[in-house]
């Protein structure tokens, strides 16, 4: 059997192949990625682009949850303050309803109740990053503004709507309770009870003051019960934040198993490619030198 006397073409193609392998191994080690362009692994690349979108979503949900949590915590502390103010009002009302208190005593108590009313309205107008916490879904205006024509002295500018903040692919939490539910509810109006008590203290009988005080107790109980809504939201958000951080870990481990390399294997591949490249080159240098003419002298 005759052999191909011209070995150069084969030698060149061997060297090229070995250098290509070396380059691929080097790229994997230097980028830490097995897939550097779609053709390296089309299905992994496609899956990777979807995973990246999921990761971006998880990041956004985490940011939403963080912001929703701050909002809920602020609302929660506002309601805590309102509850404590209402407790003060109940104490003051009970004191005013006492038959021993004089008209001037009642006047000064009425002033205090007016002060509490102003404080509660101030709290009800709390904003968070420009959003009125208790204005429903209306933005850009204060939830309550002073209005002499209103029996409570204040008008609600918001609406009855509730915003849901999405913090997961299929989870959203209630972000707000409208001021109309919390403060001017027909059955247990905080503002109505407070202004009623102030009026009763100024001009009413002990019995009327007592009735007005018990209306405040009703409003107090109602606000306390609504308080639980925020507690619930905070709990949900805390557990969702934990879930999202776990999800993030899971996704990034999926990412690295999809397109990443095992550092040890890649390093081994690289040194193997280097070794095979230098042996190919060494072999080529030897084989080309031989010729019969070298010996025919």
């Amino acid at each position, binding site marked *: 059997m005759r052999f191909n006397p*011209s070995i150069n*073409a084969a030698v060149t193609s061997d060297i090229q192949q070995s250098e290509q392998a070396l380059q691929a191994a080097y790229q994997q080690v230097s980028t830490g990625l097995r897939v550097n362009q779609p053709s390296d692994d089309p299905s992994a690349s*496609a899956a990777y682009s979807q995973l990246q979108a999921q990761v971006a979503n998880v990041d956004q949900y985490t940011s939403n949850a963080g912001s929703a949590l701050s909002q809920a915590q602020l609302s929660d502390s506002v309601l805590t303050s309102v509850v404590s103010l209402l407790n003060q009002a109940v104490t003051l009302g009970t004191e005013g309803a006492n038959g021993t208190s004089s008209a001037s005593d009642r006047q000064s108590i009425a002033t205090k109740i007016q002060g509490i009313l102003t404080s509660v309205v101030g709290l009800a107008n709390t904003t968070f*990053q420009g959003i009125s916490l208790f204005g429903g879904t*209306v933005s850009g205006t204060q939830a309550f503004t002073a209005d002499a024509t209103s029996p409570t002295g204040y008008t609600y500018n918001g609406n009855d709507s509730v*915003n*849901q903040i*999405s913090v997961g692919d299929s989870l959203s939490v209630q972000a707000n309770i409208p001021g109309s539910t919390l403060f001017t509810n027909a059955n247990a109006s905080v503002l109505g009870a407070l202004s009623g008590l102030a009026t009763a203290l100024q001009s009413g009988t002990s019995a009327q003051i007592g009735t007005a005080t018990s209306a405040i107790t009703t409003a107090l109980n109602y606000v306390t019960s609504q308080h639980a809504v925020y507690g619930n939201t905070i709990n949900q958000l805390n557990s969702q934040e934990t879930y999202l951080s776990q999800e993030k870990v899971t996704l990034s481990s999926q990412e690295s198993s999809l397109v990443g390399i095992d550092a040890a294997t890649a390093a081994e591949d690289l040194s193997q490619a280097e070794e095979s490249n230098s042996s190919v080159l060494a072999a080529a240098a030897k084989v080309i030198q031989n010729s019969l003419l070298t010996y025919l002298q």
Partner: protein
Amino acid sequence: MASLNSSLAIATQSLQAQELEIQTTNNNIANANTAGYTRETVTLSEATPSQDGSVTIGNGVSIDGVSSVRDQLLTLQIQQQTSEQSSAEAQVNALSQIQTLFPSSGASLSSSLSTFFTSLSALSDNASSTADRETVIQSAQALVSQFNTISAGLTGPASGLNSTVSSDVSQINQLTAQAASLNHELGQQGSGGQNSGPIGDQLSQVETQLAALTNITVTHSSQGDSITTGSGTPLVLGNQSYALSTTTNSSGNVQVLDQSGNDITSTISSGDLGGTIKVRDTQIPSLLNSLDTLANQFATAFNAAQASGYDQNGNAGAALFTIPTTVAGSAAAISLATTDPTAIAASSDGSSGGNGNVAKLTALQTSPLASGQSATAQSANLVYQIGSLTQTATTNSTSIQQSLTALNNQQGSISGVSTDEESADLIQYQQAYEAAAKVINTIQSLFETTIDMVVQN
């Protein structure tokens, strides 16, 4: 009848035979590195013996001729594989460029899409934030320009590919003219068939170059080689060549016409021309169609979701994207209908801070569009499409290259010049020549002996 004269004649023939051997060897060595050269050998045979009564006497050597050592079947296989290889190569070159439009990291269609949806998701947190709304508009702008850029990146290579088609066709015409004139020379030489020497070498070179450009069929005959295209249109018949021509069709693509003006573009399946046409007419349009479909369905669905809500001013949500009604060209034409941040229809009830419609807008990321696939899945699918096309072409190119190397090696083992072999042969012929010269020398001294005999008497 044996005589000194006939011995002298045999020795002279022998000298001539060895001279021819030496010359052929010399020619082989001289062409050891000539591309396409096929080594030649001298065929010698015993001359017809003469009969002297019952004795048969050898009559020396006779020269039958010089022939090239080649395997015609192997040559055909090499030409075929060369065709496939050039086609794969052309696809790899074009697709690798297109592939850079879909990077695995950094800004891509997928990442722009994802950023757009996360910016919308941020609105769920604070629908009245102008900054957040501005971010949505900006990411929508980035998404639109991704669509525009990729569409341009897909349509851009077409002009380059068209000029490749034109230049390939003019090269084919040059080569077929060359083949026809080689056929003519072969005819004059009257030595068609397998051992056609240097002209055969050149013809086979020209055919391999043609095969690298397009798929051809070669038939050997006494009039030389007939060459036809994949569709059977003749390119070379005897000493006549038929030129291909090009024309530009309505969509601006260069089409290939045979000598009678028929469009044979779709029958060209391999070679550089075949690979180029495949990328231009099949692969790029399919990618572009996927992109256009995604752009069109996504924009339409998003505009519909916008319409179900209210913008920040309490007006019914207007379209955010401007998109043509037809799918074709959607990715190139998609644009933002407005850059007003208040136009995002986040609210479901018309209240300025409401976010009730945000969920509907973000749902488009994962809910199926008209094609049955979500926007994210469709954009991932595009990545898969281009990746898989490039990978297939690369794998083909590598494996065909290997088989081509093996075939070339085999051809080299049959037709290649080994300087070692030729050197050894040279020693052999040198010795045979010296021996024949010695015979003449001996006969001369025998003649002298005979003449001396006569003179002495």
